[in-house]
């Protein structure tokens, strides 16, 4: 489990970010005292640091520079200052990425994952399992008890969204929004067609649990 240190002075953000990242399977540490923040951080040996710029005692740039003197731990700078100078300065001081507030949490999560993957060289398979179904996100194949099938780009997105929210109804609008935000600008009809095809493929591999339609509400994977 990767360990993330959140260096952030706004209490609400600090706590909510902890809850959020814990939910996604990270171990989080969030110091509340900024006096010896550099030593503290180095002692904790985190896998990644989320660093705010406007901090009491020392500002983020200083902390970034000090940490870089003795550690190569990935640092993501998170700040509400959004001009190019700040970004440039952060990068020059050795930060790995720069995210501006108010950030999209999914974007933040994606960046954390990608940096961790790059730094630790772990080839994650991007494998999701749902009951007996193995779903490989990187090549879009599904395997159910030995029988496999290939999914198209849109079907991958629909299935991954439904598996993420398994047991919950996902409204058509939410599903479409999820797809739009990953660059598939599908319309209403397109979505129906894709869902129907996906359902058929799941049927073909012999999966018992299939996507159910809840009239007027949306889709659900039980």
């Amino acid at each position, binding site marked *: 489990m990767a360990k993330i240190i959140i260096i952030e002075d706004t209490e609400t953000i600090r706590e909510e970010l902890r809850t*959020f990242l814990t939910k996604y399977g990270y171990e989080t540490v969030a110091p509340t005292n900024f006096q010896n923040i550099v030593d503290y951080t180095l002692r904790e040996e985190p896998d990644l640091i989320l660093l705010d710029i406007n901090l009491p005692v020392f500002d983020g740039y200083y902390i970034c520079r000090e940490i870089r003197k003795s550690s190569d731990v990935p640092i993501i700078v998170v700040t*509400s200052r*959004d001009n190019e100078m700040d970004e440039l300065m952060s990068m020059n001081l050795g930060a790995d990425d720069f995210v501006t507030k108010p950030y999209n*949490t999914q974007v933040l999560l994606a960046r954390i994952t990608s940096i961790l993957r790059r730094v630790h060289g772990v080839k994650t398979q991007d494998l999701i399992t749902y009951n007996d179904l193995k779903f490989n996100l990187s090549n879009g194949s599904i395997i159910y008890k030995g029988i496999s099938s290939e999914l198209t780009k849109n079907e991958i997105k629909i299935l991954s969204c439904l598996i993420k929210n398994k047991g919950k109804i996902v409204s058509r609008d939410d599903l479409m*929004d999820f797809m*739009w935000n990953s660059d598939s600008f599908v319309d209403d009809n397109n979505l129906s067609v894709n869902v129907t095809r996906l359902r058929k493929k799941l049927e073909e591999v012999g999966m018992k649990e299939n996507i159910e339609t809840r009239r007027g509400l949306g889709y659900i994977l039980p």
Partner: protein
Amino acid sequence: MKLKDYFKDRTLFLLINFMLFAIMCSIMLLIDIRVNIIILIFCIWFLPVFSYMITEFIKQKNFYNEVTNIMDDLDKKYLLSEIIKEPEFIEGKLLYDLLKHANRDMHEHVKKYRDMESEYREYIETWVHEIKTPIASARLIIENNQNEVTKNINYEIKKVEEYIEQVLYYARSNNVSKDYVIKEVSLNTLVRNVIKRNSRDFISKRISIDIEAVEGTVYGDVKWLEFILNQVIGNSIKYIREKDGMVKVYSVKNENNVVLTIEDNGIGIIDNDINRVFEKGFTGENGRRFGKSTGIGLYLCKKLSDQLGLGLNLTSIIGEGTKVCIIFPLGKVNLMS
């Protein structure tokens, strides 16, 4: 300055001279002085007077001509007193000093307002950054507590963010150069990002989108371009027809520019309003009917486009839709690559 006007200005002086001479003349006639002598006295009297007046006239005329010429050539007219030579005649000197004094005072006055303005702008920028923290907190709280209610709050918060962004860009619109970084921008990525930002509205209003024909790259600042495009697309969404709404975005590469067109099949704009849509605070017929307009969005777009050197024009047919073209000029350097 004309000679006639100059003499007209000195009518009183001349009149007194003539009256005095006339009195003397009549006295001289009474004591039987010869006409020749009277003419001689006339010459002795008036020749110096006229020659003096004429040299004065030439001096003044030269001075004022110079001042007028400088004034015509001058870019910033208020700098006049800094540029003209100090005149040699007394009235000129007096006026020159007064002008300088007034000028100095005006500069101080202008400076005061300039300081006030920049102070205000700085405050707005700080404020915008400050308000982002509570917004980020709110977004995280929503993220951790997802349900119908928070989803709706999230939607509203997104709108708040848009308005805040508008404030920031409004404050910055007077000096774009302060944070402006020119990079190669892919039009496709730009358009996709803006569509994604508005995905909720597109989906809930069932607006179909066609961005197949967007391609190529332009040179500009991503943030500013995104802001302009977001305003334009935001308008398309706002004024879309109720059924079968469609927004089409495409780019055309010409010899010396790239034109990005955003076309919708919304309610359109009436002819009377179309020329005024870029005016500040202008809301027009649609603003009155739908009451969602502040008259700032397009005004800002135009202002920013002008500063970024982009063309922005809008055509519309009432009941059929609106078409906005953003024209990116291509310089020689760009064309070579």
